């Protein structure tokens, strides 16, 4: 059982993990590894994992990445890493290689007063109280075994905190790069984002890797938006086709705060992109647009839960998948409207483009509504490219493959349209074009 090996790994490493010896952190880690030991990897018997089977992932033996010398780290990445980087003048950048912070490739730049952008391991050492609340809040009862494992074994990640009323004009870019090596490795990055009242920021979160990397990324990001705060978040997963990726984004959206998230996934043999959002004050707004472009035997899972815990809250979700060959996409969108949470608007739409008869898409919208004055909608479509449109484009001189490419691009365009920052949109466009 691989879950045993992670428990053993924890026992072996615990004294060397960042913050070892801090009683509250030790306690959180111990509770988490106990929970993981009990529950192990989620199985398809668990409702939210019904369509995504982790048995292939859990059969792997994942080691801990070797610590790298600064020279080898430099050699690893320069050519392979550069295409993923936003220009240093366009962003504040943090780069992690195999989970380890890389000073050489990061470019944090000048930050406005009231903004802290740092890394978790550093903050744990220097000012642990600073993250105590965020860390403690990140371990709720409904978390599954994988987020518990993340908590037990986390070493590093991003910390972004913005004080009330501050606007960060440039986006933050977070890059995780996985190298290839003789053994498969697992990393458990943990990121904490906290925006104060009426503050504003944008964040681009990227998971990439060497073409033959066999890593498992098991990451958790918690985002806390105080009243009136505004965050634009783009999440990009283009790991190697031999990699596994599980990413959980946990959101707390307070009164009048707005979250806009765009998640795109083209890499990994198995990827799960999960969002859990709680809308806790009137006027809170949550928009999620997520999509996967996959082929071969890739498996993509997009799972969300939006909890309308307060009246007058809104959510909109759009999921778009493009599937070729024998790939498979799972889309599960759950919307919960609590009793007394009246005047809710919650829309959800899932569109799947199946380019091959062997591709398969599962779509499961789930509405749990306990209030009566609400407007909730959901819809799902499945289909191939429009043959009439292909003929039309060909009759205007486009060869068939180019016509298909243009139509696929048009299908995904709606995802990028959600992004308001031109810098981020241009970046994602460039990345997607290179990946096509």
């Amino acid at each position: 059982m691989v879950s045993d090996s992670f428990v053993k790994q924890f026992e072996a490493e615990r004294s060397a993990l960042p913050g070892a010896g801090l009683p509250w952190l030790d306690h959180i880690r111990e509770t988490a590894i106990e929970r993981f030991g009990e529950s192990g990897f989620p199985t398809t018997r668990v409702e939210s994992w019904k369509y995504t089977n982790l048995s292939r992932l859990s059969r792997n033996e994942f080691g801990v990445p070797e610590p790298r010398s600064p020279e080898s780290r430099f050699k690893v990445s320069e050519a392979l890493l550069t295409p993923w980087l936003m220009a240093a003048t366009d962003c504040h950048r943090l780069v992690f290689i195999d989970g380890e912070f890389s000073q050489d490739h990061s470019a944090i730049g000048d930050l406005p007063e009231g903004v802290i952008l740092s890394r978790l391991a550093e903050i744990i050492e220097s000012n642990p109280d600073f993250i105590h609340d965020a860390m403690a809040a990140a371990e709720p009862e409904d978390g599954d075994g994988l987020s518990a494992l993340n908590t037990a074994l986390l070493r590093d990640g991003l910390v972004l905190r913005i004080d009330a009323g501050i606007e960060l004009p440039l986006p933050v870019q977070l890059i995780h790069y996985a190298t290839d090596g003789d053994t498969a490795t697992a990393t458990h990055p943990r990121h904490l984002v906290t925006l104060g009242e009426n503050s504003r920021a944008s964040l681009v979160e990227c998971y990439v890797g060497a073409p033959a990397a066999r890593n498992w990324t098991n990451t958790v990001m918690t985002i806390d938006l105080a009243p009136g705060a505004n965050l634009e978040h783009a999440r990009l997963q283009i790991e190697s086709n031999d990699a596994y990726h599980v990413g959980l984004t946990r959101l707390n959206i307070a009164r009048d705060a707005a979250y806009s998230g765009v998640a795109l996934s083209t890499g990994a043999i198995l990827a799960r992109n999960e969002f859990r959002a709680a809308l806790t004050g009137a006027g809170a707004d949550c928009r999620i647009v997520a999509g996967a472009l996959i082929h071969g035997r890739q498996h993509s899972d997009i799972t969300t839960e939006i909890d309308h815990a307060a009246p007058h809250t809104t959510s909109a979700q759009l999921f778009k998948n493009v599937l070729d060959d024998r790939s498979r996409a799972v889309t599960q969108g759950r919307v919960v409207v609590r009793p007394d949470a009246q005047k809710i608007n919650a829309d959800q739409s899932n569109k799947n483009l199946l380019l091959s008869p062997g591709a398969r898409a599962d779509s499961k919208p789930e509405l749990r509504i306990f209030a009566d004055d609400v407007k909730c909608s959901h819809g799902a479509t499945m289909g191939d490219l429009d043959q009439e449109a292909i003929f039309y484009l060909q009759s205007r001189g486009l060869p068939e493959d180019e016509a298909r490419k243009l139509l696929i691009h048009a299908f995904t365009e709606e995802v990028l349209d959600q992004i308001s920052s031109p810098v981020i949109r241009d970046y994602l466009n460039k990345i997607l074009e290179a990946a096509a």
Partner: protein
Amino acid sequence: MSMLSIKNLHATVGDREILQGLDLEIGAGEVHAIMGPNGSGKSTLSYVLSGREGYEVTRGEVRFMGEDLLAMSTDERAAKGVFLALQYPVEIPGVSNLTFLKTAVNAMRRARGEDPLDAIEFLRLARAKGKQLEMDDALLQRAVNVGFSGGEKKRNEIFQMAMLEPAFAILDETDSGLDIDALRIVSDGVNSLRAADRSMLLITHYQRLLSYIVPDRVHVLAEGRIVTSGGKELALELEEKGYAMLGLDDDAPAAA
């Protein structure tokens, strides 16, 4: 010299033979009209000439500027200069009119071994050509045909024709669904594209279009073959007497 030469063309859709021995010669610079009752094979002819899947040629040949047209794929025919203005232009959500046309223009330039136009050259050209067809910037920026009125869709077809400058254009029921103002804009657009090295085939049910775009020759298609041909006066005669004058069973072509 003949631009398009069709000899004894037979074509089936599914297991139905729609074209049953059609002959047609169109010279360079000529505008021909094909009229005929519903179900006579007019649209099938336009799809066969543009190479649409599902339309199978079982006999006969089509030569375009001396080459075997039927051996080419749809996009190869387009690159050689064949253009089809569709009766029902297709909506393509997510692709702007300009992106669509720029991709098309440059695909054809590439097929002809020419350099692609850059964004600025292309936009200048599109605005100049769009002016006559009243294609304003808003229509150019919008997704192809999405939410366009019937008239806007047809104007867009002729605008594409102006941009792609084909040697041979087939206009399939371009007049259908147009009010009189839209018909005038579209016809003016088509007439301004008439040239000594460009031929056209107008497919229409009604005579009305032919008062605006005056053809050199008029043919009547029935049961998959040309049953009679004449000058532009044939259309007027048909309007007056109906297809019944040819012993054909259909509503009169004047009943627009």
